[in-house]
């Protein structure tokens, strides 16, 4: 397959049709948590609730471990995984604090100071990747 032009943006996973295909059952699980009755069932017994969704073993593990970045790498999309986070009482900003590895406080501080600069963050080569 030809290299996708957006693959050289650092620290970014573009949720395209390939990801959407891979993450389908994972994302459908996440969105099911939009409803209170499903959140209640999931919170009572996570493993049993996950049996309803034919996701891969890796995806299932990542859900149970709340490995937020791995969930995205395995086809999850942030608007879906944020439903799982919301169930844990984690809002978008605190989730970002975790995904960036910065921690909630220093992430919030960075945002108050104008956010992450575009300088040095355009291309993977600037991050010392590929």
């Amino acid at each position, binding site marked *: 397959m030809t290299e996708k032009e957006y693959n050289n943006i650092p620290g970014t996973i573009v*949720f395209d049709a390939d990801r959407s295909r891979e993450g389908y059952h994972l*994302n459908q699980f996440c969105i099911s948590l939009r409803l209170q009755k499903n959140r209640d069932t999931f919170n009572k017994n996570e493993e049993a609730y996950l049996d309803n969704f034919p996701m891969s073993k890796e995806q299932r593990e990542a859900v149970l471990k709340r490995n937020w970045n791995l969930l995205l790498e395995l086809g999850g999309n942030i608007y879906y995984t944020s439903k799982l986070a919301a169930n844990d009482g984690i809002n978008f900003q605190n989730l970002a604090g975790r995904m960036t590895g910065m921690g909630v406080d220093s992430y919030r501080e960075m*945002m108050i100071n104008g956010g992450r600069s575009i300088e040095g963050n*355009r291309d993977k080569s600037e991050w010392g990747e590929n």
Partner: protein
Amino acid sequence: MAKILAGVGCSHVPAIGVAMDTGITHDDYWKPVFEGFQKSREWMKKKNPDVIFLVYNDHCTAFDARCIPTFALGCGAEFQPADEGWGPRPVPVVKNHQKMASHIAQSLVLNEFDITIMNEMEVDHGLTVPLSVMFGDIKKNDEWPVLVIPLCVNVVQYPAPTGNRCFNLGKAIRRAIESYEEDLDVIIFGTGGMSHQLQYKRAGLINSDWDKRFLDLMTEDPFGASQITHLEYLRETGSEGIEMVMWLIMRGALNDNVTEIHRHYHVPASNTAVGHIILENNE
């Protein structure tokens, strides 16, 4: 005949809704965000439109991964605020101008924009937050002072429609609205943006210089703005900055020449740069 008076560009950050719903808009963090909408609310009162045509996106709320329409027009009688995982916002149900929506649906398809028609749809913060910031605090048991025709755009799964396509859709929407026989005043909203990235290791990206240039283009060179590529949005404005293509639908529905009535820009609201512009059609 119906007439488009003006366009409004406006971010739709969920935390802005939470701030309004929990009454913390005057604290140090939120005050500068809301001050920039003071003038907008006065302007809105003066304009007193009959209908808002509101372009927004659903954030995996009403639409899950089973069905991902690129353009979905709300044609049902009303739209309930959705539970996005933290309970529905305490705002009124959104009421449609159903007859006009049907007319627009028909006109768009005949103009070769093959939209999806939604007769049942819940609406999330993407739609209700712009209404709240532009109309002020309106509680659950009150009513929105306007009817709303929602157009929901896929910007979650890549690729979103191109800026060019959105701009041309805006033109078709204008033809549709202005061929509706009733004398109604319409304002069109383009919502979302500005620069922000919510996901993965580059989360928190903000590009204020780029955003301000985009606001300039909205006023002065909308065609130029419509030619911005997906790659540029993704790289320069963060993975969720691509929402800005929705502003181009609004802009396409206006005259080439517009008057910029108001502009507001502030960083941050949660993870996002808040941008807002009001453009009036010149007579």
